[in-house]
């Protein structure tokens, strides 16, 4: 059966170290690991953790933007935002599927999210206070996510990599619609410019935190890199992001809330001030501005959907068409 054979004990008589060496050689050759192939238990565990967290982020990530669908300033922006939020729902589905190929069940994953046992991206625990936040999320937050996802599209696990290729294709629209709005608002009326500056001031640091702790505080990273799950570190991706975004935002006349931000001619990189890791860990542990609301919204959606799940299951049973 597809997607479950990872649990089988392979009776090929090979010792564990020999299998591990073979597994690592496959990854070094750029081969993809597929459901059914031998993999170390730790590889599977790390992938389930990462992929389900990623799926939860797509699902919770619909909430901050969804809040503005009814208040979009034009029909055009409303249709764009609707399509973007709908895409994020699809991304959540693609990713849950990838985790399911490793033996995780949807019921378990939903349960982990709703009980708070699983995490999702910290960024969605910040509020969307004005319309300019929507452009900012598209350009900065989706932009940061794309850098991470482009890396993961090359990862060694076939189903995760395929989900990422599909997601990256769709994410470029998310980023560009956001960038277009930031450009237009930053060149708009004084009120629009104030709104835009306010959004950038609030989102800049939380976006940099999206890449996760410094490499020195990411104990999993070396293993993830060795097994081709990650191919670049948190700090490398964060630096790329600042190098791309800082000059563009400044070209629009926007000010970034970092007095230490400056271009280093010698290295060719933008240097930036230190990240408030106390804030980061506070939000991870549940004490961010919107953690409680986000969780309450997910639980309410799950509870409100119970009768639909039950009604459809009862219908399928009655008509004998369950599968």
């Amino acid at each position, binding site marked *: 059966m597809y997607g479950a054979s990872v649990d089988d004990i392979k009776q090929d008589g090979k010792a564990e170290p020999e299998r591990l060496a073979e597994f690592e050689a496959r990854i070094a050759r750029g*081969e993809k690991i597929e459901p059914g192939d031998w993999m170390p238990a730790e590889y599977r565990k790390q992938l389930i953790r990462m992929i389900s967290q990623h799926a939860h982020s797509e699902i919770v990530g619909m909430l901050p933007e969804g809040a503005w669908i009814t208040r979009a300033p034009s029909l055009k922006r409303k249709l764009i935002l609707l399509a973007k939020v709908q895409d994020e729902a*699809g991304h959540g589905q693609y990713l849950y599927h990838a985790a399911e190929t490793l033996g995780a069940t949807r019921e378990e994953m939903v349960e982990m999210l709703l009980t708070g046992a699983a995490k999702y991206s910290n960024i969605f625990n910040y509020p969307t206070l004005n319309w300019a936040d929507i452009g900012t999320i598209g350009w900065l937050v989706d932009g940061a996510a794309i850098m991470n996802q482009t890396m993961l599209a090359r990862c060694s696990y076939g189903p995760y990599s395929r989900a990422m290729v599909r997601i990256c294709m769709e994410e470029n629209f998310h980023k560009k619609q956001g960038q277009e709005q930031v450009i237009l608002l930053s060149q708009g009326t004084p009120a629009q410019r104030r709104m835009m500056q306010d959004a950038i001031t609030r989102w800049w640091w939380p976006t940099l935190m999206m890449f996760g702790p410094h490499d020195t505080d990411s104990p999993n990273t070396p293993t993830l890199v060795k097994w081709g799950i990650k191919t670049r570190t948190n700090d490398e991706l964060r630096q790329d992001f600042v190098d791309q975004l800082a000059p563009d935002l400044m070209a629009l006349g926007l000010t970034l809330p970092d007095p230490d931000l400056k271009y280093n001619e010698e290295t060719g990189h933008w240097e930036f001030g230190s990240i408030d890791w106390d804030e980061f860990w506070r939000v991870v542990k549940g004490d961010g501005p919107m953690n409680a609301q986000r969780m309450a919204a997910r639980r309410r959606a799950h509870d409100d959907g119970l009768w639909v799940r039950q009604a459809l299951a009862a219908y399928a049973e009655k008509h004998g068409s369950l599968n």
Partner: protein
Amino acid sequence: MPDTQWPRFMVFQQMAPGEPLVHNGTVHAPDIEMALLNGRDVFVRRPRAHAMWVTPVECIFAKTAQELADGTWLAGVQDAGGAEEKYHVFGKLHHLGQLDQLGMVEAASAPMAMKRAIEGFGGKPVLVWWVFPAARTLYSDEAEAESLFQFSESHDFKNQAFYPVITMMRQMRAKGKLED
């Protein structure tokens, strides 16, 4: 009744008439008809589709090149006789690719279908093999292709080319330089 996320169904999509189907992923649904509609909603938001197939996940019989490598599994497959039925064959041909439709075989069991698939389509190296019974697959109705899928193509704003941000940024930088 216990809460449920429903069973899983595998979804395959054909982008244009005559093209092989490709594997997309799975959806959860209470029954196979709903699985087809959920598959459309999840996978056909863009760019397009001409046909879609769904089959219950447990109907997929899979083997990877690694599992087949030493030949013992294949050597152990016996034709036990019995009524034959049609099986669809999908295979992954490239490390960076997905599973593509290869064709069809007839066999009395899934392992026999796998064996015949490998004999019939194994000319090039296949990294992952799937076979599943045609009788357990639901196919979108050709006559409904337009109402099921066509609208996905008509949303320009879902295409990144709709947003001329590169030109806009270039203009902004040029303007900044003039003012300096």
